[in-house]
């Protein structure tokens, strides 16, 4: 974990209100592990007293890439950053995805820009597996060629049917599990909206498969001090709070109290 002044080296709008932000951030880029995030001070947003957390999509040499959707003040502020501008980053933060187990078959499941947190999992995996990407429409299916270039198979589902199978990504996953799965035990790596996390978690837990889920809780300090981003996890017969920024954002699905998640 370090404070680093990163430099904006390019802004690349991709599609449907999504952009890639490439930053020169040698200290963080060399340390980041799959599923970790950086906490960014958005420039010119002086009335906001908190940073904004972003998953690291790619880390290549001294360069970090963030994939983000223009949804609010923070992401609009990020979009307005200029080439050569300096951004204050804290990172890499959090407890990310473990390396896929060699004797399992890795399955990535992503909703919308959730795929950003999974790219480094695919890149560093000892085994090539399959990725299921879901979104509202074709516009929300991002960077498929990046994953294919790593030798992974990508299957797509959109709610409006504009790309891939029509419907939810979990239905696509169910079909695959039923018809195409080999004898290898699946191991899931999941990032997306909480409803999707919950749906994949329940399928994995029911069959005693391992699922690693990355939660997207509102965050404050990002380093474990403010206790904003907590969620309930099992602790023996009882429960305890876990910090998404510190113990997470990636949790073993079997540890989360899913009934407490909206």
């Amino acid at each position, binding site marked *: 974990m370090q404070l680093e002044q990163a430099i904006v080296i390019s802004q690349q709008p991709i599609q449907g209100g999504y952009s890639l932000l490439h930053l020169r951030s040698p200290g963080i880029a060399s340390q980041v592990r799959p599923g970790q995030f950086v906490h960014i001070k958005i420039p010119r947003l002086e009335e906001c007293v*908190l940073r904004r957390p972003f998953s690291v999509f790619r880390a290549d040499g001294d360069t970090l890439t963030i994939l983000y959707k223009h949804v609010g003040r923070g992401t609009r502020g990020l979009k307005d950053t200029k080439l050569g501008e300096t951004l204050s980053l804290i990172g890499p933060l959090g407890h990310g995805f473990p390396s896929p187990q060699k004797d399992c078959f890795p399955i990535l499941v992503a909703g919308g820009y959730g795929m950003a947190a999974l790219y480094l999992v695919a890149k560093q995996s000892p085994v090539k597996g399959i990725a299921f990407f879901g979104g509202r429409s074709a516009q929300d299916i991002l960077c498929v060629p990046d994953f294919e270039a790593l030798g992974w198979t990508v299957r797509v589902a959109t709610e409006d049917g504009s790309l891939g199978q029509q419907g939810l990504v979990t239905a696509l996953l169910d079909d695959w599990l039923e018809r195409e799965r080999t004898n290898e035990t699946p191991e899931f790596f999941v990032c997306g909206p909480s409803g999707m996390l919950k749906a994949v978690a329940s399928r994995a837990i029911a069959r005693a498969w391992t699922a690693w889920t990355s939660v997207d809780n509102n965050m404050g300090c990002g380093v474990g001090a403010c206790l904003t981003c907590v969620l309930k996890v099992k602790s023996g017969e009882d429960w305890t*709070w876990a910090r998404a920024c510190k113990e997470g954002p990636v949790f073993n699905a079997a540890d989360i109290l899913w009934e407490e998640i909206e």
Partner: protein
Amino acid sequence: MTPNLSTNIGGIQMKNPVMTASGTFGYGPEYAELVDLNQLGAIVVKGICLNETKGNQTPRTAEAASGLLNAIGLPGPGVAGFVREYMPFLRQYDVPVIVNIWGKTIEEYVEVAARFDSIPGVAGLEVNVSCPNIKEGSALFGTDLKMFERVVKAIRNATRLPLMPKLAPNVADIAEYARCAEACGADAISLINSFPAMSVNIETRRPMLANKTGGLSGPAIKPIALRLVWLAAQAVKIPVVGMGGIASAEDALEFLMVGARAVAVGTASFIHPDTALKVVRGIEQFLAEKNLATVADWVGAFDP
């Protein structure tokens, strides 16, 4: 000549007048990789009560314009858990550790204070009588002068450690509370705690915080805090520690100028973890520019 920044807060000797505000800096380790803790004037840890507590449901914070609403609800490891998990870490540093304590009853405050009396490495106690987010007790002690007097007196009798009650901002006459603390034997006072506030969502018709209301902190409350610190500092001889929205050396210098002998950096640490250290360096530079030999030469320099 390098100005002398050292200050003494009710028996707590600090190398500079900048501490961390309770609840914004965890228990120390959270920021240790980013900030050299030895350069802080003091570390004030998150509030500790007798037993482990879980705090409020989520959502626990919400941003406001230049501020942060919080209703964390004081989750914590309790006295024994804190001493076991964090004191060995904190003792490695050359920095005074001020433990912020709270309780639901006077008896609990007393027991917590008494337990810390025998813990090596604890420099002093800040008493949270004013957390706006705890249903039973705490806030009431901060806004009812008789209750305030009872709790401060009782804690004073239970500890020899430097004692610093933290005042609530939402009282009619802050000077009364400052004087009361002094009369009860407090060694210093700190103020302000976050200001009771709320935020709602017009689409869902729901509150932004699970606790419905919370405490507002950050730059939004700085002018409120500055006035209260000024009023409190005129009312007592014991040192006043000023806080509320401090994000820069200039902010800190304002509080010192109106009579605070030390300051605390709170919410600003969330966005820039090194704020407190930048405040220390900025104060030093300012004093040097003004040819002031010590920080004490600036304290109370206000010309109303």
